[in-house]
């Protein structure tokens, strides 16, 4: 894959990668300043996708990353996020307010003493170590403490003198109610004395996911994370719609939530938070039955003709092994859960309101 040149100083870039283990959005805020939202690592790759991409782009981009945000703690979103944070010396870490709680931090510490694995909790354990080390080294204190996202909190603002256009990232979720609900569920994961050590495999719902509204000059984007539409007021998408009146303009680009799942689809979002026929980008989820299903694609295409997908949702055959091993495994049900890591890249002038976006697709990404 040839990624070509870096974006121009006044271009918004939204690069969506997925679905390796995890998924990732990389946003160019102008002036070689970037934000990374979630993280993924491609099959057989050593580096997280965003680190690899920015290294290929060159131009000191790793130093230009200012924010690394974990929308939630599921490992299908944040694989490699600690390594990414380590690679970006100027980046501050941000996550859901639900994760600053004592119970979650206890869970992280317990997990570091127990079965190490590749779960989202392990990634948070590594992040805590990086932040403690930054604090100890006393190099850049501003980057040593995380930013905790909660509804309507401004996470990043770039409007320095000399900048021709401002850039902001605002959290639209989680709501206070969602945080409370999430905390009660996280507390259930803390083991009791004498309970056997096990890995954490149950996933709490996604109500504490961080949804983001991004403004770069005249461009706007809404990143839906894994937030679901519970139908209950004060949480999920309904809590965000309550705030919709305070949003000055609808978004032109939409990262479809929860891999296009019907449980995350809320018609009010399309009507009130998005421009008509926005550019929608989604990443598949390859585990289990997989997402999106064909009916999900059809539903999304009925909402916008500009639907892009980073990869086909396909059941991948597992890696073939030695023939003796294969013979032994021939009757087993096996599903490789990593997908083909595709990449959709949008570049759009942040200063020229009548310009059209340039959308490129790499490594199996396609327009639905």
């Amino acid at each position, binding site marked *: 894959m040839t990624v070509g040149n870096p974006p121009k100083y006044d271009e918004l870039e939204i690069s969506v990668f997925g679905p390796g283990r995890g998924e990732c959005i990389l946003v160019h805020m102008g002036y070689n300043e970037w934000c990374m939202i979630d993280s993924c690592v491609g099959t057989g790759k050593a580096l997280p996708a965003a680190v690899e991409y920015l290294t290929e782009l060159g131009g000191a981009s790793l130093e230009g990353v200012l924010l690394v945000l974990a929308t939630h703690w599921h490992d299908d979103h944040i694989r490699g996020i600690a390594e990414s944070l380590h690679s970006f010396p100027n980046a501050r870490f941000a996550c859901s307010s639900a994760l600053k709680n004592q119970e979650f931090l206890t869970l992280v510490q317990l997990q570091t003493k127990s079965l190490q694995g590749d779960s989202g909790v392990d990634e948070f354990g590594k992040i805590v170590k990086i932040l403690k080390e930054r604090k100890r080294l006393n190099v850049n204190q501003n980057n040593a403490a995380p930013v905790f996202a909660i509804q309507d909190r401004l996470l990043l603002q770039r409007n320095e003198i000399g900048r021709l256009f401002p850039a902001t990232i605002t959290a639209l979720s989680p709501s206070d109610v969602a945080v409370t609900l999430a905390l009660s569920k996280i507390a259930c994961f803390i083991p009791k004395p004498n309970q056997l050590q096990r*890995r954490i495999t149950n996933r709490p719902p996604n109500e504490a996911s961080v949804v983001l509204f991004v403004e770069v000059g005249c461009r706007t984007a809404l990143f839906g994370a894994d937030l679901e539409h519970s139908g209950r007021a004060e949480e999920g998408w309904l809590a965000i719609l309550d705030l919709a009146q305070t949003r000055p303009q609808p978004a032109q680009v939409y990262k479809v939530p929860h891999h296009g799942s019907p449980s995350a689809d809320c018609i009010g979002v399309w009507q009130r938070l998005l421009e008509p026929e926005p550019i929608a980008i989604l990443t598949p989820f390859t585990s289990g039955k997989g997402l999106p299903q064909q009916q999900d694609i059809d539903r999304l295409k009925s909402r916008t003709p500009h639907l892009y997908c980073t990869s086909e949702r396909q059941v991948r055959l597992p890696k073939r092994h030695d023939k003796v091993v294969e013979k032994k495994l021939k009757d087993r049900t096996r599903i490789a859960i*990593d997908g083909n890591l595709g990449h959709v890249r949008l570049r759009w002038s942040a200063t020229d309101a009548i310009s059209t976006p340039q959308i490129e697709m790499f490594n199996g990404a396609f327009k639905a």
Partner: protein
Amino acid sequence: MPDTSLTGQPLKADTFASFLPNSNVGKLAISPELSGGARQTFSQTTVDQEQPDNQQQFLSFVTRPIPKPPNPKPAPTLRPLQLWEGTIIECQNGSFVALVNDRTDPLNPDELVTFESVEVSKEDMKLIQPGASFYWTVGVERSPAGQIRNVEMLNFRRLPGWNASSVREAEQEAREIADLFASE
């Protein structure tokens, strides 16, 4: 010549014999080095003429052929070809689904694999629960008689339960981290 004494001094026959209950004398297996040393020491230096009966008794003991310990039953050998580490994700009726990570080649993608509970040994059955960790090996087993067969094995990891002090320690660390973050 090996020294057979505990103190650096050669043992006298009666002293040595006194350690040996009569009923057990014939059953003892003494290593060749020890027995050879004992025989030579006894005959050359410490067996005097004062107690001929004991001497005769002891000589008959130490000069009899010492039975070799029976060889342990030869065990089959396993040549592993593929190793995964698995974590149970979901338990179903009579089967379970695990996320397995290729330890032979970690760059291979993880897989979801279904196992039947009957594949698990009776002792490990109680460990089949979400979050349990196990190793899954496929390899070639060679029996002592030279027979070869392809085998796969599930070995569950037995980890100690959490103790109250570990949980307290983690809570304390969590408080410190929370304070660290809150200080900004």
